C-alpha cells in the first residue's frame, strides 16, 4: 500500500504543532508554581532532584506553599506571572483538543492501515535503523525504506513519539488528577505515587522538546521546502508553495500564542468561561469516581492502615488565623471551647464539640495522599467523620444542593500573599457525599491537627485539589444555592483567583 501523506495526517501534524506548543507553555506555568521535582511522595525539603526557580525561601520563618511560586515571563509560559489557575485552564482546554485529536488519529491509523508507517513489521527495521543512524553520524542522509515515506530511524522515532510518548504523557497527566489518582489508588501507588508520575510527566515534556529540536534539524537537513511540501500537499511536487504556506502557518501559530497570552492577562474570566464550556463536559464525569485511597504499599485489602506510610511533617499551606477568638481557642487547646456549627437548609441544626465529633466518628480514619494544586504532596492519616454521616444527622431539607464550609481564616488579614475576606469553600451534594469527604480532627494519630494543617477541625476532600480541603473550619452550612455567596463562584480561590469549583483535575 502507498502510505504517502493523507490529508488527515497532515491536518493532525499541524494541530499537534498548535496543541503541543500550548501544552508546553501552559505546563511550564503549572510547573512554575511548585518548581521542584521529587521522587518521594513526602516532598521533603531539600530532596528535590530538580528545581526551576531562582528563589531561596525564608530560613527563619514559616513559609507556605503559596510562597513557592516563581514568576516566569509570559514569553515563556502561558500566561506567565505565576497565574497558575489560568495556566491550568489553558492546559486543560488544550488537552481536550490534543487527546481528542490523538484518539481520532489513532483510530484512523488502525482502520486505514497507516499504522504500518510507525509500527515495524520486521526486526529488519531495527537493523536498518542502526545503519541509518550510522549514516546520519557520517553526515549523510539515509534513504527511505522501500514503500515507506521515510527511513527506519524516522519510522521508529515517530512511532515512539506517537504510540509511546503520547499515551504516556496523557496517562501521567490524567493521574495528576486527584479524582483519578485517588480512585485508581493501587495503580497510583504501583507506579511510585504522585511525585514519580509528576516527574515522568516532566520527562515526557523533555522528550517532546528533544524530539522537536531533532525533528526541525532533520527537516532542515533533508531540505526545508522539500519536507514542508510533504507536510502541506502530501508530496514534494510544490516545494516553494509548500515552504511558503508552512512558514505562514508557523507565523499564525506564533500569533495565536501572542493573542492567547495577551487575552488571558487582560481577561482571565473569559478564558475561564471558555474552559467551562470545553473542559467541564468531560471533567464533570469524574464525579463518578469516588476517592478510595488507603495509602500503603503493603495494603491489598483496601482497609485503613497504620502510620508507616504517612508524612512526618505534613506540609502546611496557608497561614493560621490570627483572629482573637481563634487564638483563644488555640490557647485553651480547643477541646473545651470549640464548637462546629451545622446549619442552613437542614431539619436539625446542631453544634458539635470535638468530643462529640470523636464519638460520632467512632475511630474512623483514612490515610490519603494530599494533592496540592501547586504540586506538592504529603500523606496523612486523618481521623474524622464523613460529611455524608454529618448530613444524615442534620437532615438536609428538600432542595438542598450544596454544602458551604467557612473558615476562621481571613485571607487579607492572615496571609500577606493574598487579599480579600473570609476563606470559604463549597461542595455540590455529590462531592459532599463522597466516601472520603471528611470532617477531620486528628492527623497521624497525634491527638489533634497541628495549627498549620488546619486545627482544630478541617475538611478533607480527596477527589479535589488541596486548597478546597478547607482548614480551620468554623461552620458548615447546607444551602440551596451557592452562587449568592461571596462573588458566587463557590469558594475563596474560585472568587479571588481563577480556579474551577468543579476541580477534579
Amino acid at each position, binding site marked *: 500500500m502507498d502510505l504517502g501523506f493523507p490529508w488527515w495526517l497532515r491536518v493532525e501534524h499541524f494541530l499537534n504543532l498548535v496543541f503541543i506548543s500550548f501544552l508546553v507553555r501552559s505546563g511550564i506555568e503549572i510547573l512554575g508554581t511548585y518548581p521542584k521535582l521529587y521522587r518521594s511522595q513526602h516532598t521533603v525539603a531539600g530532596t528535590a532532584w530538580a528545581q526551576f526557580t531562582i528563589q531561596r525561601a525564608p530560613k*527563619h520563618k514559616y513559609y507556605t506553599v503559596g510562597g513557592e511560586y516563581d514568576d516566569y515571563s509570559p514569553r515563556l509560559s502561558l500566561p506567565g506571572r505565576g497565574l497558575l489557575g489560568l495556566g491550568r485552564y489553558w492546559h486543560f482546554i488544550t488537552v481536550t483538543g490534543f487527546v481528542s485529536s490523538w484518539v481520532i488519529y489513532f483510530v484512523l491509523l488502525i482502520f486505514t492501515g497507516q499504522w504500518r508507517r510507525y509500527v515495524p513489521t520486521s526486526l529488519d527495521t531495527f537493523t536498518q535503523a542502526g545503519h541509518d543512524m550510522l549514516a546520519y553520524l557520517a553526515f549523510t542522509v539515509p534513504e527511505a525504506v522501500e514503500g515507506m515515506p521515510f527511513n527506519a530511524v524516522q519510522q521508529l522515532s515517530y512511532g515512539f513519539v506517537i504510540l509511546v510518548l503520547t499515551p504516556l504523557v496523557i496517562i501521567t497527566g490524567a493521574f495528576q488528577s486527584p479524582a483519578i489518582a485517588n480512585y485508581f489508588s493501587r495503580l497510583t501507588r504501583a507506579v511510585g505515587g504522585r511525585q514519580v508520575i509528576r516527574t515522568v510527566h516532566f520527562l515526557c515534556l523533555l522528550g517532546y522538546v528533544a524530539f522537536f529540536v531533532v525533528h526541525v534539524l532533520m527537516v532542515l537537513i533533508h531540505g526545508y521546502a522539500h519536507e514542508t511540501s510533504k507536510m502541506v500537499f502530501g508530496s514534494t511536487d510544490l516545494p516553494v508553495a509548500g515552504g511558503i504556506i508552512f512558514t505562514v502557518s508557523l507565523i499564525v501559530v506564533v500569533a495565536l500564542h501572542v493573542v492567547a497570552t495577551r487575552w488571558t492577562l487582560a481577561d482571565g474570566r473569559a478564558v475561564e468561561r471558555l474552559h467551562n464550556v470545553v473542559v467541564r463536559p468531560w471533567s464533570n464525569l469524574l464525579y463518578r469516581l469516588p476517592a478510595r485511597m488507603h495509602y500503603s504499599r503493603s495494603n491489598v485489602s483496601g482497609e485503613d492502615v497504620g502510620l508507616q506510610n504517612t508524612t512526618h511533617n505534613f506540609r502546611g499551606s496557608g497561614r493560621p488565623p490570627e483572629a482573637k477568638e481563634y487564638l483563644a481557642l488555640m490557647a485553651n487547646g480547643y477541646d473545651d471551647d470549640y464548637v462546629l456549627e451545622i446549619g442552613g437548609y437542614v431539619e436539625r441544626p446542631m453544634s458539635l464539640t470535638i468530643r462529640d465529633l470523636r464519638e460520632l466518628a467512632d475511630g474512623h480514619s483514612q490515610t490519603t495522599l494530599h494533592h496540592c494544586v501547586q504540586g506538592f504532596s504529603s500523606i496523612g492519616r486523618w481521623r474524622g467523620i464523613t460529611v455524608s454521616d454529618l448530613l444524615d444527622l442534620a437532615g438536609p431539607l428538600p432542595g438542598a444542593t450544596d454544602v458551604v464550609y467557612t473558615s476562621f481564616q481571613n485571607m487579607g488579614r492572615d496571609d500577606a500573599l493574598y487579599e480579600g475576606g473570609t476563606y470559604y469553600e463549597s461542595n455540590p451534594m455529590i462531592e459532599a457525599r463522597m466516601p472520603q469527604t471528611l470532617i477531620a480532627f486528628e492527623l497521624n494519630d497525634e491527638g489533634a491537627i497541628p495549627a498549620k494543617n488546619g486545627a482544630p477541625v478541617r475538611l478533607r476532600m480527596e477527589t479535589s485539589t488541596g486548597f478546597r480541603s478547607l482548614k480551620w473550619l468554623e461552620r458548615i452550612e447546607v444551602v440551596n444555592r451557592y452562587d449568592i455567596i461571596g462573588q458566587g463562584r463557590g469558594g475563596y480561590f474560585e472568587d479571588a483567583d481563577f480556579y474551577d469549583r468543579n476541580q477534579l483535575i
Partner: protein
Amino acid sequence: MEDEKSPALRAGVDFRGTQNATMRVSEHVRPGRKRAPLLRYVRFNLPRATRLLLLFVVAVIGAASAAVALSDREPFAFAAPVLWAVCGVAVVFVAVGLLTSARIWAWGAALAVASLLVYLGGLAGDAPYVWNGASIVLAATWNVTLLASIGYLVLYSALRYGIIVAAPDDQNFMD
C-alpha cells in the same frame, strides 16, 4: 518586600541574621531587571548520574579516537599518536573518575578541546568522510569524536553555570 504582617516582626521579634531569614530572595537578578537569565532557573541535582554521564562521554571520545587510530586512514600526518594520546588520557580520566571522587571536570574539558583540535586538524588534512572515500562506519566514528567533544563541553558549561552538579558536589537544595 518585607512581610509587614509577620506576627513576630510586629511583636518586635527580629530573627534577621541572613539576607533571606524572613523573606524570599531572588538570586541572579541583575539590577533593574525583573527576572534572572533563563538558564539560571534550571538546576538538576543528580550528582552520581551526572558524574557517570561525564565519564561516559569521555569514554566515548576515547573509544572513537582509538577506533579512528586503528583504521588505515590518517586524518592528517602523524595523527595516530595524537589520537592514541587522546585515547590514553581518556582511559586515565575514566579510571580516576570511577575510582576516586576527584573533581576532574576541567581536565575532561581540556581533553574534549584536544579532541576538537584533532578534528579540526582532520578538516585541514584528509578527514575520513564518506565523500573522501571513507566507509560510513569510519566516517561516523570520526564524527562521534566531534559530537562527543561538543557534548562534553556543553555539559561542562552547564556544570560551571550551576545547572548540573557532579558527585561529590551537590546542589545543596535547602527547600
